[in-house]
C-alpha cells in the first residue's frame, strides 16, 4: 500500500524567493513519484516524475525535485518564485505493476499544497 503526506496545506512566498513544497511517501514497493500542478479552473498537469535513475529530476517551469530514499521524501523546489507559479501542487505515488497494467495510471495523491506568491 502507498500513502503520501504533504506538509503544509498552504505555502506563501514572495516573488523571487525559494519555493519548497514538502512531500513524504510510504510505499511497500519501489516508488514512482510525481508532482502535478493545478492552475485555477484547469486540470492536473504533470510537473515532473521520478521512476528510476537520477534522483534529482527537473521538470517544467524551473521546478525540480529530489528523491531521497533514506528520508522517504520527494520535495519540490524552485529557486525563484514567479507570480505565475500560484497554483495547487499535488505529490503522488504510483505503486508496483499489476498483471493488467492499469496500475501504471493508478496514483495515490497527497492532500495538495496551495502556493501563493506575493509581489
Amino acid at each position, binding site marked *: 500500500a502507498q500513502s503520501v503526506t504533504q506538509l503544509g496545506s498552504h505555502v506563501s512566498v514572495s516573488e523571487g524567493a525559494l519555493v519548497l513544497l514538502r512531500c513524504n511517501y510510504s510505499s511497500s514497493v519501489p516508488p514512482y513519484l510525481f508532482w*502535478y500542478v493545478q492552475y485555477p479552473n484547469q*486540470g*492536473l498537469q504533470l510537473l515532473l516524475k521520478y*521512476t528510476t535513475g537520477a534522483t534529482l529530476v527537473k521538470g517544467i517551469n524551473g521546478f525540480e525535485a529530489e528523491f531521497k530514499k533514506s528520508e522517504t521524501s520527494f520535495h519540490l523546489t524552485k529557486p525563484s518564485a514567479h507570480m505565475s507559479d500560484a497554483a495547487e501542487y499535488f505529490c503522488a505515488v504510483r505503486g508496483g505493476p499489476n498483471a493488467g*497494467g*492499469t496500475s*501504471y*495510471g493508478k*496514483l495515490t495523491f497527497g*492532500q495538495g499544497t496551495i502556493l501563493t506568491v506575493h509581489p
Partner: protein
Amino acid sequence: EPEVTQTPSHQVTQMGQEVILRCVPISNHLYFYWYRQILGQKVEFLVSFYNNEISEKSEIFDDQFSVERPDGSNFTLKIRSTKLEDSAMYFCASIRTAHLNTEAFFGQGTRLTVV
C-alpha cells in the same frame, strides 16, 4: 498538444437523480481512470478501465457507480442515484501504455454539485 477533455465543466443535480460525466481520453491511449476530489480532501482513485472492462475499483466505487466506453472515443462515469456526499470534482485520466515511464494525463475535471 493532445489532451483529455471532460464535459460538462460544472453540473448541478438534485439528490436521487442520475448523472453521466463524460470524458474523451487522448485518442491512442488504452487505459482509463476516474478520480474524485471532495472539497478540501485528497484526490482519490475510483476506478480503472482497460479492454472494455473494469480492472480495479476502490471501495468508493459501489453499485451506484458504473463506467462505460460506449464508442471508440468517450469514457463515461454514471452515478445512478446521486447523494449529497457525491458532490466533488471528478477527474478523468488516461495513459497510453503500461510502461515504467508512462505518465497519466488528466482532464480539467467536472465539478458535480448535488443539492
